[in-house]
């Protein structure tokens, strides 16, 4: 039953966005002047193609986000399991090891200047 609720909510959100777009395209007037159709570069004539090389820092940020996100997300079951266990010392030992590895990775990232944005 929960699942049907989520699908209904998703469909209603989609129809809402679609209806808004539909109304606007119906009511708006249609005037196809060439000047509007061009790439917008604050009025100046567009220069160069849009697909040019972008900085590698964006990619390095995304990849470090992925790896650290996986590490932090898997702390979640640890947090929920900690409430139920009796031998908490064993759990804390694992937590300390987990955090040491996380911090070693983090320190490597910081002084590897991979995320230094100012050139």
């Amino acid at each position, binding site marked *: *039953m929960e699942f049907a609720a989520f699908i209904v909510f998703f469909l209603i*959100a989609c129809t809402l966005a679609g209806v808004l777009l539909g109304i606007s395209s119906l009511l708006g007037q249609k005037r196809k002047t060439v000047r509007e159709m061009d790439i917008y570069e604050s009025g100046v004539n567009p220069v160069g193609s849009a697909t040019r090389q972008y900085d590698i820092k964006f990619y390095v940020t995304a990849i470090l986000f992925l790896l650290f996100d996986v590490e932090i997300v898997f702390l979640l079951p640890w*947090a929920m399991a900690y409430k139920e266990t009796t031998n908490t010392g064993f759990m804390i030992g694992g937590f300390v090891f987990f955090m040491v590895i996380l911090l070693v990775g983090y320190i490597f990232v910081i002084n590897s200047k991979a995320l230094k944005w100012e050139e």
Partner: protein
Amino acid sequence: MLEAAIEILLKTVVILALPLGALPLIIHVERRGAAFMQKRLGPNRVGPFGLLQPLADVAKFMFKEEVHPTHVKPFFYTAAPVVALVVALLPLACIPVAGPIEAFGRTIFPEVFRSDMGIFFAFAVSALGSYGILLAGWASNNKYSMLGALRACAQMVSYELSLSTSVVAMIFVYGTNDIHQMISSQTGYWFGVIPQWGFFYQPVAAMLFLVGIFAESNRLPFDLAEGESEIVAGYHLEYSSMKFALFFMAEYIHMIALSALFIIMFFGGYSLLPGFDLIAGNNPALIVVLQVASLVIKVALMIWFFVWVRWTLPRFRYDQLMNLGWERLLPLGIANLIVTVLFVYFRNR
């Protein structure tokens, strides 16, 4: 079967009506608040106190021409605002507006999508927010919007890390993932006056989450990706009329959803405000209404805080912004996690 369908539709309508209904009001509060802080009047011509101004804006967006530039990618150009709005609306499905209600012989849970991973689901879905932006940047095929989209996504992504550390810390303190248990463990009072909100258990995690909310919803001082003075207008550069309005709505609803999560975790969600439980007595109908009212009041205060910060703090430079995210907030989040875990361990050993 029919009763279940009615229940789902009723809940969806209530959950969608609250933020969408409040949206024009929030835009109006933003404009009037900005004017109030800059010692000017703000819109007060249309209707009493200018309250009809947002409706006039919505009508304007309806009637503007749907410009469809030729150089954009055809399908993805119109799909991007729809994706942005839908992904912004999805976390609302997991946020309960009131406590479980005993009616028609069984307990009805007010949130649309009930699972014992409530807070984690809302957080996971709000992590998908950067797809609308990426799609818009790529589809409009324009240097500035592509760069704006990349910068907005890199910023949202790097602040999501510190957000997830504070979420893990709070889940560790509460021990559960279920929103109703989280809120019921926040309803007591210390010395009769201070409410036992999560904020007082974990002030550092609350600060981290607050900063994360500003960065995640691209609000000043973190709105570099769409800053007018930086790169023209960021990812929604090639969009006009209703498509731009959809991005605008998506940003506000994302902001409402994240501040609702913040209030659930740190300010007791729908638990009654201090004065309210005297009024409530204990007939359930009044309690539910007051619970919804206290949640709405808390979210309204959060929205006012957003407006307040927007017109006081200057905008970050991009490298300062990324350094703050990676070199300041993330270690703070990890340290806070370690300190909480060790404190809880040594306290009850």
